[in-house]
């Protein structure tokens, strides 16, 4: 295929990705709002409904009367499955966006802010799917996918850039290593951030009183599980972030003649690293566990976001590729 065709395909796939993700968000929200119960009590209720429904056809009734079971069926749409299927389809389209973009440009497809943000969103969705498969963390779906949709929206509306070559400074095999590590770490931190926000919301809700069986919160696991999930994802991402910084330093040494020069990007990567290190330490210290540590984790995530947007658009530095 021609470069132009591939670039065009990448843009079209981007549209499909965004649409699939938005529908997935709706399905996740529906699942949280009125999906199947997780509690045993809820399961019994569903079974009761099935029995009622099964009774229906036995009776000889008119079509008008037959309507309620049909409506009942519709209400029992498996939102969770729908959401996950759409999510995986969207993920595949997203992968296609990145691959076709890379093929069109004949290089690693993270050479400008549009591509970088697209890749970070992809990493976040991938991290979420991994967490979904390993820990059944479907409750995170709505949050992570909203974040992904926002990221892709920002990428397309404000950061879009057509396919092109990179500046000579970026023309190095380090882009494949350093930037990839930064993307994976950022995507994972996003999932950890979503779990932490859920943790804070849930712990507030729990403190307010008992959670009714029907509420959204009954579908979110306990604070301890959320806390551990956030920690687990952070412990995965932290060494990768460390490696991204170190590899960035090695690259900086090759490109700019020094491995550390307190460029705004370097400074904020360092600040982010320190903040996550503080979170990990706090998490292991009794007096700082729980809420305090969660707030620390969100502060660290805020630093990470600022490092992406603030540093590239507010300051002029060596990392200003916008």
């Amino acid at each position: 295929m021609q470069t132009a065709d591939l670039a065009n395909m990448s843009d079209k796939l981007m549209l499909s990705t965004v649409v699939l993700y938005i529908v997935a968000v709706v399905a996740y929200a529906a699942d949280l709002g009125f999906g199947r119960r997780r509690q045993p009590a809820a399961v019994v209720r569903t079974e009761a409904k099935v029995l009622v429904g099964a009774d229906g056809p036995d009776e000889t009734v008119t079509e008008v009367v037959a309507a309620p079971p049909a409506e009942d069926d519709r209400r029992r749409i498996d939102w969770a499955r729908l959401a996950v299927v759409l999510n995986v389809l969207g993920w595949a389209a997203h992968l296609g966006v990145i691959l076709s973009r890379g093929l069109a440009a004949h290089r690693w497809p993270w050479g400008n802010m549009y591509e970088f943000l697209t890749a970070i969103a992809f990493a976040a969705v991938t991290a979420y799917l991994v967490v979904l498969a390993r820990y059944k963390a479907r409750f995170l779906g709505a949050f992570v996918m909203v974040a992904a949709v926002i990221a892709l929206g920002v990428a397309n509306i404000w950061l879009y850039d057509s396919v092109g070559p990179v500046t000579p400074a970026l023309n190095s095999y380090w882009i494949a290593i350093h930037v990839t590590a930064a993307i994976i770490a950022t995507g994972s931190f996003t999932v950890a951030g979503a779990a932490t926000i859920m943790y804070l919301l849930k712990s507030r809700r729990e403190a307010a009183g008992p959670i009714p069986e029907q509420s959204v919160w009954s579908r979110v696991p306990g604070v301890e599980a959320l806390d551990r999930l956030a920690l687990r994802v952070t412990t995965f991402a932290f060494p990768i972030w460390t490696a991204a910084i170190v590899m960035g330093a090695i690259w900086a040494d090759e490109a700019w003649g020094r491995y550390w020069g307190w460029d705004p990007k370097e400074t904020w990567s360092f600040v982010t690293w320190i903040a996550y290190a503080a979170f990990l330490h706090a998490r292991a210290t009794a007096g700082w566990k729980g809420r305090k540590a969660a707030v620390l984790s969100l502060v660290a995530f805020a630093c990470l976001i600022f490092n992406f947007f603030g540093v590239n658009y507010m300051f002029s530095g060596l990392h200003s590729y916008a």
Partner: protein
Amino acid sequence: MAETDTERAKAEKTTPDEPTPDQAGPDRVEEAATATPAGRRPAEEGPRPRGIGPIGWLRWAWRQLTTMRTALILLFMVALGAIPSSFLPQRAQAPEKVDVYFQQHKALAPWLDRFSLFDVFAAPWFAAIYILLFVSLAGCVVPRLVKHFQAMRAQPPAAPRNLTRLPQSATFETSRTPDEVLAEAKALLRKRRFRVAEGKGAVASEKGYAGELGNLLFHLALLGLLFSLGVGNLFGYRGDVLLREGSSFANTLAQYDQFKPGRAFSTNELAPFSITLDDFQAKYELKGDKRGQATDFHASITYRDTPTSASKHYNLKVNHPLEIGGTKLYLLGHGYAPQFTVRDGKGQVAYRGAVPFLPQNSRTLQSEGVIKVPDAQPDQLAFYAILWPTATATTDGKQIISEFPGALRPVVSIVGFKGDLGLDSGNAQSVYQLEGIGKTLIPIKGGEKLMEPGETFKLPDGSGSITFDGLKEWTSLSVNHDPGRMPALIAAVLAILGVITSFTVRRRRVWVRASAAEDGRTVVHVGGLTLGNPTPEFDDVVTALRGDSQGSDASEPTTPVSEETGTPGDASPGDKSEQSGAETSTSAADDPSDKE
């Protein structure tokens, strides 16, 4: 200290996790043996020292400094302290921007300067924070290292009395004798690389020392990184040179445009190499909406390691520095250097050469520069010039712009001045700016002209002429020597390896006790304790130990696994240290300091 005390009070209020002696209950002594290995505990909140004298106070201060809380606060202060450097211009990176800031904020700037906010990373307060942090780190890591080595050599702690009370436990019966079971357990655990010790009717084992080792390695590597940074700053140097095509540079102090030596660097240590820039080539995208974007730069250079050695050739590119005798040479920037010949009022050639112009726009390389001709007679001459590498008129035809960074149709616009350049005053002048315009330097009437290469412009008042001979390019090179580079790399790699090890390896203990039951069979109790979340290994050990003892009414292994996220993989050191509910311990390793 006031701040620390508030933090202290806060932490005291919010430490419900800490077991009080009452909660620990009567089993405290037994549980002491099963305390989670190497778990971290918060600062010991003993009563404030009273009447303990200066040494007591020092010890108290040292203990405070090495607590986790102090380390956390210091970590945060480092992060906070680094932030102003991204909002305010820094002398180390952009001294010219600091000057501009001073002009724009006349009242504020001196105050900011008083707090070293334009040199954040050289500021005394910043140094104070990170030195305290690293002292705190060392004060924590070194004793822990000693304790860890002792623990690695010591026997695994003896089996607690009641193994079923442990987080992981299993009980089964078998027809083998207790001795057989214990011998088998020993062999099995050894094979699984546990360190094994035999007690009375029981086997104790422990493994996963690498986790703590990785943790310590990580922190020591950070110390090493800081040390390397210091070595580089002290013994290294860096300098910038601007080289025009055809010109040469010898590595001596006088030839640098900018030179920053480390405090302990002596200029005799400059490697005696020399280089010549033969040619510089920039490639740009020619088509599409990316037209004009640079795609490749390379500088052909010839260099000699020493004045007497043979000359070699190198193609210097971005991302491909040249290393000569422990010194590295980098291609940093480039621009145009138009060549001019200036004749003075007497017809003498007063200047001939290529003048580096500064690019104003990286996409079009529209550049500006000045030509100073102090040797012109009778008046000194000066020219301010703008260069458009590919000149074209704007659509309204009123302005000239450069539409491409390559030199497809170079045009310069010249404005002539005469008078006194002010070079004799002794004040340093920028080579890119004219000083005293309108005062000592008077614009020449009708002295403006657009010129193409080869054109000569006679100044209308007869004070001279200028010829635009052609276009050369210049490159800026960065030269540096950093002896801390390799140590820093090694320290960084060790830090990454350390942090990964500490997150993935968990210290765990397994005890096996076998005792004869009344019916001639043997009851086997297996207990396991893991720092952090339990691993599935315990179940594997139990399964292997049970072996052929089918039919026995054994209870299932009880590894607590929570519903959603309870699968093993939690790597937090000390995460569940309150699990055992004990705060004292028997092993030396069980008394770590309170932070990582």
